[in-house]
């Protein structure tokens, strides 16, 4: 038992509460973190994880309660002061200055202490080497990959002699190899006695390398357990507050005749794509980021201009030059990047939902406001979108509810072909399950789905058929009920 053997907690949080207008973000949260321990924190979006971390790093001020770090009571603190105390936080959206060099970023605001440029870079190199990174300290941060940027953040944290490093979903934008490197670094940090708070949505990571896990829900700490004393299903039940039998609903089975066929599609990225989609089918598309999987569906949907493509719907050739054409052929697409391509953040839930059927709601140029409200209410109810009302600004909703609103936007038009590009990215377990159920309902109603996801288990469990895409070519077809994950991954990674 790791917890009991360490007598003095490095960080203890006692009964901390924080309220925002209308929400109790944290309600008497207590937590202890020990040196040399990797402490995982899981919880659905809106559980209070980020709020708690932002209080620790000084971005927010707590309303009540006590925080003790290394015997010091922390009350009001600025982010820079908290770093100096040895408490570092690495945010999901990394906090580096793109136009400055690696070395300058690590010692931002502290150049003079180090005797100028040469000192900065040599110290920076030592720090980076200590975590096994070979990044050139003279390189601009804008030229680095996401994983290298993360290395720089970690080096920056170490430069403050941090005793506690908080990582907020660090692996969400890393490749499999990069995640392995990150895990190695976490092990190194741990052996130096540094405590790590690891916030994640991926339960595999909790069981992979965390020692202790705290589950949060609705601003409360539900439980803190040694990872050996908790099962995956227990953890999920604690997160969502009810028992979920499975992470995935049973695979829909009935599949009909071919409705959509790509007989050839070529772009700068794509080479002679051939693809068929059957009625009532979920077709999984597996490939690495940059393999051409997103380009394929964007080209199909008319989002990008494509020189040559030959697409058949019900055996008849169709021309799709823009999303409007695609929609007219009853196609729909939930794009990869929810914030940039899907949502209109400044608009209401209602206006976000009515978007795709706005033309239908328009009579002689005027939008039928009553009908628009009805459409929105119907989808909010059908998809169980948690929002005070249709008039609420969509930016105030959690990621899962935002995604459901985007789905509702398309479901209202009852699409025959629904393209889902990373539909569950950054969404908590409960909302994920609801989205899986929705997918099932859509295909059972005679629709067809093309599913792209970086989470292989999701594709394997949901799809009737899987195509792998690699370097712009479709290079394999699998029946996921027979094929193993390894087989499919091997094909998707073939030349990479």
């Amino acid at each position, binding site marked *: 038992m790791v917890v009991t053997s360490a007598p003095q907690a490095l960080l203890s949080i006692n009964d901390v509460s924080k309220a925002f207008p209308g929400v109790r973000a944290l309600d008497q949260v207590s937590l202890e973190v020990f040196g040399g321990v990797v402490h995982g924190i899981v919880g659905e979006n809106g559980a209070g994880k980020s709020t708690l971390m932002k209080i620790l790093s000084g971005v927010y001020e707590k309303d009540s309660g006590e925080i003790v770090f290394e015997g010091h009571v922390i009350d009001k603190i600025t982010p820079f002061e908290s770093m100096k105390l040895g408490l570092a936080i690495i945010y999901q959206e990394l906090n580096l200055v793109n136009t400055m060099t690696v070395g300058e970023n690590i010692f931002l605001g502290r150049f003079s202490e180090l005797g100028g440029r040469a000192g900065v870079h040599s110290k920076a190199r030592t720090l980076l080497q200590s975590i096994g990174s070979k990044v050139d300290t003279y390189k601009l941060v804008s030229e680095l990959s996401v994983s290298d940027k993360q290395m720089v953040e970690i080096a920056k944290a170490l430069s403050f002699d941090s005793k506690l490093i908080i990582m907020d979903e660090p692996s969400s934008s890393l490749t499999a190899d990069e995640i392995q490197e990150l895990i190695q670094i976490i092990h190194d940090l741990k052996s130096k006695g540094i405590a790590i708070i690891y916030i994640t949505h991926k339960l595999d990571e909790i069981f992979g390398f965390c020692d202790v896990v705290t589950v949060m829900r609705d601003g409360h700490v539900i439980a803190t357990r040694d990872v050996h004393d908790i099962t995956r299903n227990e953890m999920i039940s604690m997160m969502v507050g009810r028992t979920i039998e499975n992470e995935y609903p049973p695979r829909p089975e009935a599949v009909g005749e071919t409705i959509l066929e790509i007989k050839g599609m070529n772009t700068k990225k794509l080479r002679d794509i051939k693809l068929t989609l059957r009625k009532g089918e979920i077709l999984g598309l597996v490939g690495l980021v940059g393999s051409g999987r997103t380009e394929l569906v964007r080209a199909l949907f008319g989002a990008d201009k494509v020189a040559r493509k030959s697409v058949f719907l019900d055996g008849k050739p169709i021309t799709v030059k823009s999303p409007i054409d695609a929609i007219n052929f009853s196609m729909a697409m939930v794009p990869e990047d929810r914030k940039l391509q899907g949502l*209109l*953040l400044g608009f209401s839930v209602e206006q976000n939902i009515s*978007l795709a059927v*706005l033309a239908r709601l328009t009579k002689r*140029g*005027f939008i039928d406001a009553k009908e628009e409200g009805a459409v929105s209410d119907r989808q909010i109810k059908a998809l169980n979108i948690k929002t005070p009302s249709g008039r609420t600004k969509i930016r105030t909703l959690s990621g899962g509810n935002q995604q459901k609103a985007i789905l509702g936007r398309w479901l209202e038009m009852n699409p025959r072909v629904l393209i889902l590009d990373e539909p569950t990215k950054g969404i908590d377990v409960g909302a994920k399950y609801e989205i899986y159920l929705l997918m099932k309902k859509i295909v059972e109603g005679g629709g067809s789905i093309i599913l792209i996801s970086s989470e292989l288990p999701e594709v394997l469990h949901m799809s009737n058929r899987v195509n792998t895409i690699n370097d712009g070519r479709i290079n394999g077809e699998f029946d996921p009920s027979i094929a193993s994950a390894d087989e499919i991954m091997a094909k998707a990674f073939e030349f990479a």
Partner: protein
Amino acid sequence: MSSATEPIVGRVSSQRAINLLRNNPIFVAIALLVIITSLVEPKFLTAANFDNILRQFGTLIFAALGMTFVIMAGFLDLSIGGIISLVAVVTVTLIDKVGQGPAILIGISVGLLCGLINSALIITSGALSQAESLFITFGMSLVYGAVALMYVQGVTQFLTYSTTDISIFNAINSGGIGFLSVSAVLFLACLAVLYVIERRTYLGRAVVLTGGNKVAARLAGIPITRTIVFIYAVSGVMSAIGAVVLVSRVTLADPTMGTPYTTQAILAVVVGGTALAGGRGSVLWTVVGTLLLILLNNCLNLLGVSSYIQFVLRGVILILAIWLDRVKQDSVSK
């Protein structure tokens, strides 16, 4: 949080009033302006001065109303100064040739044509960012201005030199319908039409959606191209109406007379509270913004403040408006 639990009703309602003013500081600014100026300069509250204010309101408000749609959609139109100049000279020179009614119609068609050219350039070049639209319309502003100069060889055209009837222009300048002036009626009509488009129609929704997130709106089937054509057409036509009102008031057409209206119209829209980034705004707000600018102008003139200082103040107000907008945005996103 704690104020909600307090039982004192009076405090809650006064709190609401304070919030209203805090969220709309422009009303406070207008009130302060009126109070201070009327105390210092009694001439401010005279009928003659109000007439003066309403006349100045004229051209700017039309251009600013059109600009509101452009900015709400996340674009900019720097060509309206050129359009106003061009429409003014075309209209005045045509009066003797085709008569005043047709001359006005042709003038407004020229404004429409300029707007269509702007949108065609933006669409065909794929210049869908605000900065790109800014440069394209700035370029076209030079073109329209130069065409105006070439058309009249740089010579100012006087309305009063016309040998035929100019009664429509006279009516726009000094005529009245009931207790309202003709230009005020024209303004109210334009405002009503644009407001209904903005709030009720598909096209109006497409404008704000485009400004809110072009990429997402396009992927959801909103016709971005059609929206761009629409906003620049509106901007061209509204500028042209502004040009006709301007010609009526000053009784001449000069090939550079439109120039100051470009920045003033943008200023009026942004000061009114329409987000410069697009996606949020209203023609009603622009009316308030324009009112503030005209009042400020009028007050400073009455108080004898030098025009150099006035330029400085205008700049400060623009920056202040954008800063306030930022503050509002940040508080929303938190």
